[in-house]
Structures are given as structure tokens and as C-alpha cells.
């Protein structure tokens, strides 16, 4: 024979979602047939009645909180009501401080950082071109860490960048130091007035280390990608860097180094 117990908390208001969450927790208790916490409004009264959760002697009004339990026996009903009281008085969970919301796309990253001027793209090569193009169109210089980007895509991206006054570093650009900030893999070297332009791998790293050992420092180390100096690409990014250095857009720089295993075809 099941037991229905109602407790009225006169003048107590709790949010309906909180009450539904507590109800769900009580309903899961072994031996509880049904349980609900509701503000005793006329509409809720009907719901409780339909669910067979009302004791016929219960009196409550719309401003009162009704705790209703139907259980297999009195002991279970009592302990469930006790549990309901605990849950209602439980202090707020500690996870309610808004965490920093990390952007999920380039678009929202740009909104969070309106002054950003460079994007590092590291996605499978088939998708790198599309992401790089979005970055360029958002006014960002691009470093493409990804490999497996087709030559045709590289040429197309670099031409678009040139027209926009931007640079594409890479693809397959594994290292760079821009104004002292290392990107991808880079060595810790002193800052100085020597700029390096290179394919984008160990050559740049080695030269930057040699310069550091010689007591000098690096202003920028810019990888342009292993194919930039080919005739097909036409050194678009290399020329952009040289142009920027010449116009002193990149400072401070007095010397420029070109590690490359390709002959310069300027």
C-alpha cells in the first residue's frame, strides 16, 4: 500500500526549473513512485492531482511551495522529504563563474581581438586554403603551418595577399619570430636588429641560433614557405618582406639574412 505525503512550505518561492531538477532527483530514489515540488498554483494543483500526488487534507495557495511524495512506505516517504529539504537548502554549486569563452571560429576571434593582425593556420591541408582566405579577407596576415596545400592554392593565396597588402607565410611554415614573438617552433634568441627571411624550417632556426651565439639578436624571422622562390610562385612573399624592410614597416632592422637552399631568382 503506497503512502502519499504532502508538505507545504508557506510563502516559499523557488524557481520552477530548480524545483523540477529536485523533483527528478527525488523520483530516482528507490521506493519512490513519484515525487514533485511545485508552487501550488491552480494549474500545478491540477497536474499534481492528475499524478495522484495530493493528500486530500492538504491546503495550500499559489504563493506556497508544495512538496509531494508518493512512496512504497512511510519510512521511504519520510526520508525522501528529508532529502527534499536538503536539496532545497543546498548551497549554490561553485561552477557558476562564467569561464572565459574561447572563440570557436576565426570570425568570433576577430571580434574578441579587433586589433589582431596575424592568423596562424594549422588544419589539414585540404582546408588550409579556405581558412587562410578567410583570414586574409579579415585583414590578417597569415602563417600557414599546414602542409599538403597545393601549389595552385599557394599561388592564388599569395596573389590575393599581395593585392591586399598582406603576407602569406608558408605553407608548411614551421617557424617564425615576429617582433620577438615566436610562432610555431622557434628558438629563444635575443632580440636585435637582424631580420631573417627563409623557407621556414631548420634553416631559419639554425641561422637565428648562430646569430645569437655571435652575440647579435633577431628582429624578425619570417618563413615564406619552401616554394616561394620557385618561378611558379615568383617569390611573392619574399618580395613583400623585402619591400616592408625597405620601407621600414618592419623595425628595427639593419641586416637581412637569406638562408635558402634554392638560388634566388629575383
Amino acid at each position: 500500500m503506497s503512502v502519499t505525503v504532502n508538505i507545504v512550505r508557506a510563502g516559499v518561492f523557488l524557481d520552477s526549473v530548480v524545483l523540477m531538477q529536485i523533483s527528478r532527483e527525488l523520483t530516482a530514489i528507490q521506493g519512490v513512485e513519484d515525487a514533485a515540488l511545485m508552487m501550488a498554483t491552480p494549474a500545478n494543483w491540477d497536474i499534481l492531482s492528475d499524478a495522484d500526488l495530493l493528500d486530500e487534507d492538504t491546503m495550500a495557495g499559489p504563493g506556497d511551495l508544495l512538496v509531494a511524495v508518493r512512496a512504497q512506505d512511510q519510512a521511504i516517504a519520510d526520508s525522501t522529504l528529508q532529502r527534499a529539504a536538503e536539496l532545497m537548502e543546498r548551497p549554490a554549486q561553485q561552477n557558476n563563474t562564467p569561464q572565459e569563452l574561447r572563440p570557436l571560429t576565426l570570425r568570433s576571434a576577430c571580434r574578441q581581438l579587433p586589433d589582431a593582425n596575424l592568423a596562424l593556420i594549422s588544419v589539414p591541408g585540404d582546408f588550409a586554403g579556405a581558412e587562410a582566405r578567410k583570414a586574409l579577407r579579415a585583414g590578417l596576415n597569415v602563417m600557414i603551418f599546414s602542409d599538403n596545400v597545393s601549389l595552385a592554392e599557394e599561388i592564388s593565396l599569395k596573389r590575393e595577399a599581395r593585392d591586399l597588402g598582406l603576407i602569406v607565410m608558408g605553407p608548411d611554415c614551421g617557424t617564425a619570430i615576429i617582433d620577438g614573438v615566436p610562432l610555431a617552433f622557434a628558438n629563444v634568441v635575443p632580440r636585435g636588429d637582424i631580420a631573417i627571411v627563409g623557407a621556414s624550417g631548420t634553416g631559419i632556426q639554425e641561422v637565428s641560433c648562430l646569430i645569437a651565439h655571435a652575440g647579435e639578436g633577431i628582429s624578425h624571422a619570417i618563413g615564406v614557405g619552401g616554394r616561394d622562390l620557385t618561378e611558379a610562385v615568383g617569390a611573392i612573399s619574399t618580395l613583400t618582406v623585402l619591400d616592408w624592410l625597405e620601407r621600414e614597416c618592419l623595425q628595427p632592422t639593419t641586416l637581412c639574412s637569406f638562408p635558402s637552399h634554392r638560388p634566388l631568382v629575383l
Partner: protein
Amino acid sequence: MRFGGNDESVRDRLAWIRDSLGPALGSALQCCGGIPLRPLVARGLTMGDEMHQRNVACSSLLLRELAPALASAVADHSDLSEMLAFMGSNDQFFLNIAMAMGKSIMDPVRNIEQSTVVTAMTRNGTDFGIRISGLGDEWFTAPVEMPAGLYFPGFSAADANPDMGDSTIVETIGLGGFAMAAAPAVAGFVGAGSVAEAAGITARMREITLGEHPEWTIVSENYQGVPTGIDIRLVVETGIVPTINTGIAHREPGIGQVGAGVVKAPMACFEKALRALGERLGIS
């Protein structure tokens, strides 16, 4: 018919709305010259409504605006009292108005050449459909999903019907799930209901929308506007689908609402719409 409820009380109530409340509201609105909804919703958002599952503030604000005019329009005191009691005892009264407002906001956005903005979202219990501006009145549909949520006493997920109803028009304009950060409690239907969870849902919706409403702002987000203007390109590109706050209907007719929760729009609608627009524009 409310959530499939169709007994005599429901039919009587509908007849009363048709014969008494409706005409009285009509006269009251004419008498007061209409009630601007945009500022009302703006205030409701600052008071914890998201206008789909939470309409307590807006229902109250509306009643406050409407009561004097209604009192002028309705001669009989007991009729007036019944109407005020009906509106005052239903926390969701404003949802009806929010839906009509949503439709009026999105309809003028239809039929803009090449536009990828979603102009309507709706569900009928089996399919979820969207329309986009660039393709007029064509519906792009996919099977609806099951809502996840909390149930009224006596009911469980086994009683639930798949997602249903046309109230998703409020998400289409940037309210409901899109404005979750304004109503953190609603996030409790699927999670713990923390402020952080709610903010996270609104942040995800910002990834698939073109802009922010300049007047409908969220206090806890430093008065950032709600994300509005769903772009199907962003949905398909990011893999993020609209989050919808919804009531849950019983799967048998005649019973009505059995719970409330959150559901996602199916991605296939957006993919179909994007392909169709691509074809229309000659982009493969």
C-alpha cells in the same frame, strides 16, 4: 489546442478567447494606440526572460501596460476580472505575442536575392523546417530531434513526442535559446543551469548569426545584444545548429504539455537549403 490538449476545457477556453478576450484585447489596443513590443522585450530580457520558456517578466509588463485600456474597453467588471486573472495567472501569456512579433519581424526579410538568412524555423512533430530569404517560401526539412529536458510529475521521456510547434520563430529572431544568457535558469533543463553554461550557449549562437540586436541586450554580458540573423553558411561551416528552448508535448493526443527542455535544429535542413541556394546561383 495547446500541446495536443483538446478536452472540453480547452475548447471552452478557445471559444472564450474568440468571443470575449480577443475582441476586448482588440478594443483595448485600439484605445491605447497599440503597445510597442521592442522596448517591452528589451526590458523583459533584463529581467530574466528569454521569451520562449521564460515569459514571466514580459507577461507582467504587458499586463501592466494593457490593464488600464482593458478596463476602459470592458464594461462588465466580472468579465474584466476574468480576463485580468487569465492573463495574470499564465506565465507564458507573452509567448503568443512574442511569436506573432517574430513572424512580423522576419516576414519583411523574405525574398532578398542571394540572402542566406533564415526567415522561419518550425516543427510539426515529425519534421523540422526552415526557410531562407534567398529562396522565398520553399521549406527545407529534415526529421526533428527529441528534446532533452525535465518532466512534470507523472510523466517521463517515454511519453514525449518528437519536437513540435511553430514557436521556433522566436529563436529565428535571436530570442529563446539564442538569448539563454539572459535566462540562466532555463539552461537547467539540460545541465546544471549555471550562468556559465547559459553564456556558453549564447556564445555558440553568436558563431552562426550575422549580428547583434542593438536594443535587446543581455545585462550579464555587458549589454551585448542577443545574436540575431541566422546565416545558413555559418551553420554549415561551423557545424553549430540553433539551440531551441521548447515545451514537450505528450505523444498521445489529448494530454498536452508534459515537460520542457532544449532541442537542436537538425543540420540537414541547413545543408539542403545551402545546396539549393548554390544551385539557384549557379555555384556548385
